[in-house]
């Protein structure tokens, strides 16, 4: 049994960590946090040059053709560095949707552009409150154009194209939903920036008014493709969350060693030690669940739906838990803008919602476990 990443994959992780430590310091993240740039363009360019954007994209489409385990270790480092770039929208959502359902022409058009850093992509699914569900898709598709409003759309304001879920039929069934590709720089699209919990990753409202769209995947298959995309993104996001959780735990640990109160290191008080020990426990559970998700993702195993939901829940909980208690360990200083703790708190809570909230994934997990037991 080798339920672990290979030495080469671990080396890639080290390489990514070294690169991000240099190019994505908290200071660099703050440029975006403070609203001085919509995302870190230099970093995005660097990620393309390192081959990280196209690591799981086949060589014939301009990628490195490595695989999803390689993408997982890079994702972990992106989360650890709190990178202010549209990585998850472009690589986990848009690229995965293209890989699953794109025509050869669509892949040829967008995948090389993603790998080279020239195109930013995203998924436009949500329409206000609510979790992923066919009935929540109201935006319509007819005669090759889309009409309706999507919000929030992650990185919507900087994206060049979007995969859009639209209602193309009126049977009232899941088969009404189809996916479309929309060039956001073409006409019929209005984009409005939304304020959001985590300013290091933008959220937008996109209004489609007779926007030209081409189908992505077979008509009526939209929901099934979307479910696969969300599962795959859930595993990849879980690695970002695991990276973020680990970093928040380390920050808390380091501060507990450094800070003296009542004449001793605060990390010598059991109330603090036990809080940090519990953070380690949730981060470890999340990492192990995510490894299982990575295995299922990389082998396209039948277990992927269940593994993805478990990784999603576990990693979401761990990142929220570690980010929250990292602030608590820091005390008052943790609540200042100056300290970096809040950046992880913001990211953790934004990520908890991005692919659908915990309530949604809990429901999915139980459904999938039942299905497996019934089989």
């Amino acid at each position: 049994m080798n339920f672990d990443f290979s030495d080469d994959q671990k080396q890639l992780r080290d390489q990514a960590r070294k690169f991000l430590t240099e190019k994505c310091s908290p200071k660099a993240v703050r440029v975006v946090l403070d609203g001085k740039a919509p995302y870190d363009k230099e970093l995005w360019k660097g990620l393309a040059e390192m081959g990280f954007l196209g690591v799981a994209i086949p060589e014939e489409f301009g990628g490195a053709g490595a695989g999803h385990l390689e993408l997982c270790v890079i994702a972990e480092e992106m989360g650890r560095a709190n990178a202010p770039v549209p990585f998850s929208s472009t690589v986990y959502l848009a690229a995965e949707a293209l890989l699953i359902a794109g025509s050869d022409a669509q892949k040829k058009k967008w995948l090389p552009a993603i790998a080279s850093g020239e195109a930013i992509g995203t998924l436009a699914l949500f329409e206000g409150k609510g979790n992923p569900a066919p009935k929540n898709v109201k935006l319509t598709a007819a005669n090759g154009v889309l009409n309706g409003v999507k919000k929030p759309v992650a990185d919507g304001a900087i994206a060049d194209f979007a995969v859009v879920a639209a209602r193309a039929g009126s049977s009232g069934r899941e088969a009404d939903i189809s996916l479309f590709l929309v060039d956001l720089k073409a006409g019929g699209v209005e984009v409005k920036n939304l304020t959001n919990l985590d300013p290091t990753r933008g959220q937008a409202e996109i209004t489609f008014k007779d926007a030209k769209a081409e189908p992505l995947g077979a008509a009526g298959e939209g929901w099934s493709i979307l479910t696969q995309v969300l599962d795959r993104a859930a595993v990849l996001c879980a690695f970002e969350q695991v990276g973020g959780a680990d970093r928040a735990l380390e920050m808390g640990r380091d501060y507990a060693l450094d800070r003296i109160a009542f004449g001793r290191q605060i990390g010598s008080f059991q109330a603090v030690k036990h809080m940090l020990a519990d953070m380690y426990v949730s981060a470890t559970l999340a990492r192990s669940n995510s490894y299982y998700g990575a295995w299922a993702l990389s082998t396209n195993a039948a277990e992927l739906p269940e593994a993805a939901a478990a990784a999603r829940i576990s990693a979401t909980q761990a990142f929220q838990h570690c980010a929250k208690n990292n602030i608590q360990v820091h005390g008052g200083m943790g609540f200042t803008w100056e300290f970096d703790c809040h950046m992880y708190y913001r990211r953790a809570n934004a990520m908890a919602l991005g692919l659908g909230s915990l309530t949604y994934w809990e429901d999915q997990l139980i459904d999938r476990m039942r299905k497996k037991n019934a089989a």
Partner: protein
Amino acid sequence: MNFDDTPQEAEFRATARAWISANAPKQYEEELRKSSLGRTVLKNADILQVAKAWQKKKADAGWACLHWPKEYGGRGASPIERVIWQQEEGPFGQLSRMFIIGHGMCGPTMMAFAREEHKRTYLPPLASGEKVWCQLFSEPAGGSDVAGLRTRAEKDGDDWIINGQKIWTSGAHYSDYGILLTRTDPTVPKHKGLTMFFLDMKSPGVEVRPIKQASGASDFNEVYFTNVRIPDHQRLGEVGDGWNVSLTTLMNERSAIGAAVSTGFPELFEYCSSLMLDDGPAIEDRAVRSKLANWAVKASGLKYTSMRAISALSRGERPGPENSIGKLVAGSMIQDVATYALDLQGASGVVSGEDGELAGRFQAMLLRAPGTRVEGGTDEIMRNIIAERVLGLPGDIRVDKDVPFNKIPTKGRN
């Protein structure tokens, strides 16, 4: 990344599986599979006899204490082979429960500190289950603070005379031997005045009394020592070095890798899958599903954490510290799971035993659960261990560390 055996592992697994299939006491398989927490009871047989017979059969064929050297009754197997054996032994591994202390703690301590002739005499019958061992560390005045123990050992010629009391000794009532931590010098700080021995539990002056637990069962004992004589050659380690010797024992207690920990989750999921609530199937209920999902990811998280450790063993490496979370997570989880299962039963959840739902399975779980959070290191000690050894946080401030043991305040409890 894969879950596959290496060719050597696959071959070992096939050999183990074939032997188990041909030799295991299959008539008890169903009962053993159903025992989920703490107590394994067979309806129509004495579990001790069944366990001893199975252990002896394994030993005769070279399947006992796999990781021990052959000359001491083991197989000289690698750590990963030991894990594969446990996986294959499955429910029959329940029969090893009464040997866990002896095989997991006493044996390794003997191997590290006993004289060669003692190892050759005592270890093979320990491996084969013919002799059962217990561990005599905890005392009324020293649980988490083991080094606060008071049982005295005083030198008398070539012997030591033991007086005092131990508590929470698993299996003392059927044990043949034990390892015993004593205080040989009360005038030095507590960790420095301890010495370890092994002794014959049938020695004159040893008295074993069962403890009636909060659950109503009796799995543990108090052991009283009144002028018990132990020859000096049964000393393990130097005089005054007992603390270091005991660390060897305790490290082995916490290093059991690959052993399945009970969380109660599979039982609860199965129960909820068929349970009808007032307004429909439990498994369709939003609140039930949310609870189940949260426990499901803890259970799977533990399972895959264990897989990661096993993978390290398979590569011939030492597993990382992540395995230290198992007991902490599972202990409180099984208590919460049991509480919730009863909640789902409504008022009838109060009925236990044969009259209760599922023959009182979750009620029994609930009553046994507090013990799981205390035995083998309380939740609080486990958190200290993670904080100090994994995260590198400072040790607790110990006000009695440099004080001679007999000057430590006791509030009159001596």
